[in-house]
């Protein structure tokens, strides 16, 4: 092609574009989040995007390694003394980002603030279960609970339990994590820089991280493919195959979050456990995996205990297998052999909820239960759920950790009404088994107690498991050190950003 003045002028904008495309701050790592964190307050629950940023700024007493095992953070060692007391030994070199050392008094102050009456801490109830906190020296914290709690270390490993300096203000909390929040533009990006006195030698490996919010999942993937970002979360299921096929990119996905049904058991046929069991046996879970998750999931035919968990039981995990004949028999035993009419509450705002509800509707129709779909926006759906204005509702979540105690929140009918659990559905035997397991320190006996709990749940159906869903991160192959944490810990993956590096 002959180079003319006109072709040169025509090409100039693209030369300029190529220059502009290549611009990137040296050493900066760019992470495309699914939402802009409404707040990064250490103790409040403000969503999973905020959790990722909190894991950059804050550290608690404990956390998890990439295998999902507990590991020390601000505490280098921990143990229980008797049934109700836990002792944490702090690291000598842990400092807050203002340079102050992390002391036992700081930890005590944090726990007291979380438990305070006007606190909005996610773990407020749990912290109010503390009878006393002792600090015999600067590095030792002794926590005595009102009742024995074997799972207390899991609470301390939560991303809602970051410890902050007592010099923090409500506007600016001072953490002890590997990165310091340097600046942000609300709704757009956050800039974080490495904290040079982080207590782990040689970490963090990255110097700067820019968090960019991409609410649109398609654009998030496009930004990764275009090279605008180095890591994205919440990879949409429909894009996973394309990312796997791209030789430049890596997909890291695990089954962590899950979908399930809750019931309003205060009236009508759903108050009968046999009807709930019939529903549990009637649902074509493979269809949910295909329709809602593009095949990127797995049927969940029991309580949501991850296969990676030491408490997983393969036989009990299939307790609600697809069996429409059994479902019809159970309906007949309950006196509703001809079926009945009901409604399913979900939301049209999230495709996976709507698609799941549609498959459930079709499955129930096959055994004679005619269900009308109600699909308001998410805010309305939560509101209706909390007020018990539903019959059956579709819900999705992940537990706080891979210990079965994380399910208690979903199946314990003695807790306050909430859209995440069934309404008016108390199963005292299940509540007792879960409480006993929580108080049991011997792992073998805990396994027995959780097996009992699962058997009771399979009969009473306090919730009905539907499907595990794949939770994915994607990144270029040049990114190393980042890992999607196993099972329910997927949303804790931000903790591995301290070991993440990028070549080139």
């Amino acid at each position, binding site marked *: 092609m002959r180079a003319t003045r006109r072709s040169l002028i025509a090409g100039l904008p*693209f030369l*300029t*574009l*190529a*220059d*502009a*495309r290549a*611009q990137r701050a040296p050493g900066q790592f760019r992470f495309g989040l699914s939402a802009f964190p*409404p*707040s990064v307050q250490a103790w*409040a*629950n*403000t*969503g*999973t995007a*905020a*959790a990722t940023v909190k894991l950059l700024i804050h550290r608690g007493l404990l956390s998890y390694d990439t295998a999902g095992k507990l590991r020390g953070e601000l505490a280098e060692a921990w143990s229980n003394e008797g049934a109700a007391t836990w002792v944490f030994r702090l690291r000598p070199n842990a400092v807050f980002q203002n340079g102050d050392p992390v002391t036992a008094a700081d930890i005590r102050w944090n726990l007291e603030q979380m438990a305070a009456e*006007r*606190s*909005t*801490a*996610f773990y*407020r*109830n749990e912290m109010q279960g503390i009878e006393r906190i002792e600090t015999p020296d600067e590095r030792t914290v002794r926590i005595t609970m009102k009742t024995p709690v074997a799972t207390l270390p899991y609470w301390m490993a939560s991303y809602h339990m970051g410890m902050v300096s007592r010099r923090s203000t409500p506007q600016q909390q001072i953490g002890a994590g590997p990165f310091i929040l340097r600046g942000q*533009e*609300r*709704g*757009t990006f956050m800039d974080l820089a490495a904290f040079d006195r982080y207590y782990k030698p040689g970490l963090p490996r990255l110097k700067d991280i820019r968090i*960019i*919010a991409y*609410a*649109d999942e*398609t*654009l998030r993937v*496009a*930004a990764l*493919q*275009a*090279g*605008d970002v180095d890591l994205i979360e919440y990879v949409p299921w429909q894009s996973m195959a394309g990312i796997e096929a791209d030789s430049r990119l890596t997909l890291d996905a695990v089954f962590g*979050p899950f979908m399930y049904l809750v019931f309003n058991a205060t009236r009508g046929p759903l108050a009968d456990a046999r009807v709930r069991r019939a529903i549990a046996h009637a649902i074509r879970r493979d269809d949910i995996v295909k329709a809602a998750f593009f095949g990127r999931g797995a049927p969940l035919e029991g309580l949501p205990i991850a296969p990676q968990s030491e408490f997983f039981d393969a036989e009990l995990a299939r307790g609600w297998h697809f069996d429409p004949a059994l479902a019809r028999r159970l309906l007949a035993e309950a006196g509703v052999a001809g079926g009945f009419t009901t409604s399913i509450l979900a939301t049209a705002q999230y495709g996976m909820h709507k698609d799941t509800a549609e498959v459930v509707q079709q499955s129930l129709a096959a055994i004679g239960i005619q269900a009308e779909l109600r699909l*308001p*926006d*998410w*805010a*309305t759906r*939560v*509101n*209706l759920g*909390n007020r018990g204005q539903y019959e059956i509702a579709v*819900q*999705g*979540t*992940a537990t706080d950790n891979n210990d079965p105690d994380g399910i208690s929140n979903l199946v314990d009918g003695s*807790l*306050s009404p*909430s*859209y*995440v659990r069934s309404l008016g559905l108390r199963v005292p035997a299940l509540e007792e088994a879960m409480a006993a397991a929580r108080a049991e320190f011997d792992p073998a006996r805990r396994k027995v107690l959780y097996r009992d709990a699962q058997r009771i749940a399979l009969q009473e159906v306090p919730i009905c498991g539907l499907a595990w869903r794949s939770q994915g991160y994607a990144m270029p192959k040049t990114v190393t050190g980042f890992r999607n944490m196993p099972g329910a810990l997927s*949303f804790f993956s931000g903790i591995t950003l301290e070991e993440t590096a990028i070549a080139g």
Partner: protein
Amino acid sequence: MIWAAQRLAVSLLLVWCVASIVFLAIHLVPGDPAELLLSSGGVAPDPAAVAELRERLGLDRPLLDQYVAFLAGLPRGDLGASLVDDYPVLDEILLRLPRTLELIGAGALLAVLIGIPAGTRAALHRGGAFDRFASALAALLLAVPVFVVGTLLVLVFAQMLRWMPAGGYVPLAQDPGRHLLLLSLPALAIGKGLVAVVFRMTRTAVLDMLARDHVRTARAKGLPPGRILRRHVVRNALTPVLTVLALQMGSLLGGTVLVEYVFNWPGLSTPLLRAVEARDYPMVVGIVLVISALFVLLNLVMDLIYALLDPRVRRA
């Protein structure tokens, strides 16, 4: 003067009506901001924490009290603070409104730069290949929804060709080149409909002018064709085109919602959508109030200009 004062009073009344309707409507729809905030991630919030947060946010006060407090703040320019993070609503609007207006302005500029020359050329060669192609393209641009065009632009230029960033924003002062680069695709997406409208209006107006007596006279006098086109055709044809352009600018405000979302352009739409989802009442009411005020202001200015140009409007 009295007429202008009456128009101003009517405009203020309109803004108050819109603000009141939005205030009441958003409070009437189901959903509790405190409950939603503490339910993030699909977890069960502690009812005591929800009650505490409701009290702290002032949501436990009677609706009338909240409404009076809202109205009392308006004369001071106080639109309240976000329920989600206590950020002043006015600051959020002042940060983001210029970006939305910039996007609309860039779309309008594209419409002028492409639509007017193309419309003129199509009229001059009526029935020719360019006219047929451009008219068909204009129909297509009007028919295809803005989010489809936006997604296609991202797919082609960012994902396939990798010439452009997929979306985002950099302040102009920080990096002018990248700012304009990031502006280009959303401006194309939002301006595409306006390009088509301006093209059609220009074509029609130019055809109309070409058939007028004064143009025929100019030709008969032997004036150069270029001069006839510039001075006697296009100049006169631009009046209706610019009127339509000004009217369409207001409607582009609605179109920015999708475009800003698709291209991650941090204008007013993102906080508005987020605020509706989170039932962040002050943010929703503040943003809708400002958008409505802009609409009303635009109409007021247009009315005043028309009245200045044509006294019959004032008498009517």
